[in-house]
C-alpha cells in the first residue's frame, strides 16, 4: 500500500537520506532501524509531508504524495507519532482525542452553534470512539486529566490512541518504546501487534529496542548514514554481516 522509491533528502550540504526505498503491504509491520543520526526520522518526515523530499517518489495506494502538505497526507489515512511526545498538554486526555477527529466532523459553524441533531449525533460518535480507545490503552479513568500531567508511558499510549481515533490505514511510530520500562515495553508490544491483527492497520516502526523490533516486525529495513544497508525478515537481518558491522562499529 505504501511504496517509497529512491527517497533522498538534502539539507544544505548534508545528504541526510540517500536513495532509500521501502515498501509496506497491507496488515504488515515494517521496521526501520539504524544508528543515531542515520536519517530514520527524516524518512518519516518526508513520508508524512513535513518535508518535501529533494528526490524520489512516495506512493500511497498508487498515488504520489511526496510534497503534499502534512495535514492532507494525514487525511489520506497516513498518521504518525513523534520521537518526542507531542500532545496538546493543556487540554484534557479526551479533548486530545476529540481534536484528532475534527477533520471528520463537519466544522460548519452554524450547525454547531444551534446544535442540530445531526451535529449532536456526530459529536456523540466521536465521544464514543474516544472512550473506546481510551479504554483500549488503559486511560479511561484519566480521561479528564490534563494530558501534560500524565506519566511518560501514559503519554506515549495516548499519542497512539490519538492516531487510532482518526481510523488510519497506515500508522507510523517513531521510537514508541523510548523511555519506557520493560513492563511498559511488553504492553506496547502487545498493543502494536493487536493494531495489526484486530484493527487491520499497517505499521511502520522506528525503534532502537532490538528485542521489540525482532519480535514484532514482519520485515526490517536498515539504514546507515542515510543509505539503505539491508532489508529482509528479522532472521535475515540478525545474520547480515553489514548490519552487524554497522552496529558494532557504532558501539
Amino acid at each position, binding site marked *: 500500500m505504501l511504496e517509497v522509491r529512491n527517497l533522498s533528502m538534502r539539507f544544505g550540504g548534508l545528504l541526510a537520506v540517500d536513495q532509500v526505498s521501502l515498501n509496506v503491504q497491507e496488515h504488515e509491520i515494517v521496521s526501520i532501524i539504524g544508528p543515531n543520526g542515520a536519517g530514520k526520522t527524516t524518512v518519516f518526515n518526508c513520508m508524512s509531508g513535513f518535508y518535501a523530499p529533494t528526490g524520489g517518489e512516495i506512493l500511497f495506494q498508487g498515488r504520489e504524495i511526496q510534497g503534499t502538505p502534512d495535514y492532507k497526507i494525514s487525511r489520506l489515512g497516513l498518521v504518525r507519532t513523534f520521537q518526542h511526545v507531542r500532545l496538546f498538554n493543556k487540554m484534557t486526555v*479526551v479533548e486530545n482525542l476529540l481534536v484528532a477527529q475534527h477533520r471528520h466532523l463537519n466544522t460548519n459553524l452554524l450547525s454547531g452553534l444551534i446544535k442540530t441533531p445531526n451535529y449532536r449525533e456526530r459529536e456523540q460518535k466521536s465521544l464514543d470512539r474516544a472512550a473506546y480507545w481510551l479504554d483500549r490503552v488503559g486511560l479511561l479513568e484519566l480521561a479528564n486529566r490534563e494530558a501534560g500531567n500524565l506519566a511518560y508511558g501514559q503519554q506515549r499510549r495516548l499519542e497512539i490512541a490519538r492516531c487510532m481515533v482518526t481510523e488510519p490505514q497506515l500508522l507510523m511510530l517513531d521510537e514508541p518504546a523510548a523511555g519506557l520500562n520493560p513492563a511498559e515495553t511488553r504492553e506496547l508490544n502487545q498493543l502494536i501487534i493487536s493494531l495489526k491483527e484486530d484493527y487491520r492497520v499497517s505499521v511502520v516502526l522506528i525503534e532502537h529496542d532490538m528485542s521489540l523490533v525482532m519480535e514484532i516486525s514482519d520485515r526490517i529495513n536498515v539504514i546507515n548514514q542515510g543509505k539503505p544497508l539491508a532489508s529482509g525478515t528479522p532472521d535475515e537481518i540478525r545474520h547480515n554481516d553489514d548490519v552487524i558491522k554497522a552496529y558494532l562499529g557504532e558501539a
Partner: protein
Amino acid sequence: MATQNIKHALFCAFITLLISFPILGLNLESAGTTLELTGADSATIVAILVAAIVVFLFQTFRDSILTAAGKMPKLNRWSDRQPMPQEKRLKLENLFMTLIMISALIWPFIVSRGSVDLSTLVLIYVMLALGLNVVVGLAGLLDLGYVAFYAVGAYTFALLSQYLGVSFWIALPAGALLAALFGLALGFPVLRLRGDYLAIVTLGFGEIIRILLNNWTSLTGGPNGIGGIPDPTLFGMEFGRRIKEEGNISFHDFFGIPYDSTHKIIFLYLIALVLAFISFLAIRRLMSMPVGRSWEALREDEIAARSLGLSRTGVKLSAFTIGAFFAGFAGTVFASKQGFISPESFVFLESAIVLAIVVLGGMGSQVGVILAAIAVTILPELAREFSEYRMLIFGAAMVLMMVWRPQGLMPMRRVHINLQKQE
C-alpha cells in the same frame, strides 16, 4: 552569590539614576528667546536618590522579598481548587450568570447617569476582551493590532450613516462582518508567522488602519473625525427630544412620559449588555466545538495539530475572523455611544489595554476576562485623582500580577466530559 546580588543591585540603582535624573532632575526653561537648562530643586534630587536606594535595597533582598510575597494569601483562593463535577459546575455557572444578568438589568435604574454610561463602556471592553481572548487566549496568536477591527466596526457605522443614512441595527451586523473580513485579510499574510514576528506584523496592521483613517480626509474627515452618528432606535422609536427622521415617533411621546435624556443612555446600556451576553454565549459554545478545540490544539502544538489533519490556514483564519467579528460589534456600539469618532480613539494603547485585560483575567478564561475588563475599566475612573499616574499604576499592577499569579485572576478550567465505556 551575595556579592553578585549586590553587584546586580548596584547596577539597577545606577540605571534608576541614569534614567530619572535627566528626566526629573533637569528642567528646560525658556528665558526670553532661548532655552535654559536649570537643575531641579533639592527635594526632587533627594527623591531621586531615595528612589535609587529603594531600588538598591529591593534588588539586594529580592529573593527573600519574593518568597515572602509568594507565601502571602492567594488573591483568589478558588483558582487552585480541584475541578468540580461537571453538573455542579454547570449549575453554579448558570446560577452565577443569571444573578449577574439580573443585577446587570436592574443596575441602570438605580445608579446615576454617569455610572450607566461608564457601565456601557465596561461592556464594550468586555466584548473586545472576549473577542481578543479567542485570538490570544485560545489560539495563542499574539495580536497587538486588535484595535484595528474595533476601528473598522466603528467607522463602518459612522460612514454608512453619514453617506447612506443607514441605521444602527443594519450597521451592527455590517460593522461586525466587515471587521471579520478585515480579520480574514490580516490572517492571510501572517499565516506563517508566530510569536514575536506575528506580534510585530499585527502591530503594524493596527497602525496602518489608524493612519489610513487619519489621512484619508476626503472620506473619513481625517483627524477631525465623524460626528452626528445616530442613536439606536427601538422599533423605529427615537430617543432624542425631537424626531430626526421623517415617519419615526419618539420614545417619550409613544409612552406618554416626559422626555428624559437618561432613557437613551439606559437603552444603549441594555443593547451593549445583550450583545456582550450573546458574545459570551457564542464564544462559550465555540470553545466546545471542533473550531474551538482546534484553536487550542494549534496553540499547544502546531506540528501535532497538522499531523492530525488540521489545516493551519483554516484554524488561524477562523480565529482571526471570529475574534475580529466581536471587535466589530464593540466598535459599532462604541460609535453609537460616543456619537462622534476620530482616529484618536483607536491608538495602540487601546490594543494594549485589551491585551492586558486578557492576560490579567487568565488566558482563555471567559469569566476571568470579564472580571478583568470590569476592573481595568472601572478602577481608573474611581481613582480619578491619580489619573496622571494611571499608566504607572497600570504597569505596577501588571508587574505584581506576573509575580503573584502569572496565570491570571481566574485561569481557564477544562470542561469535564463524561464518557461511557464502549464495548
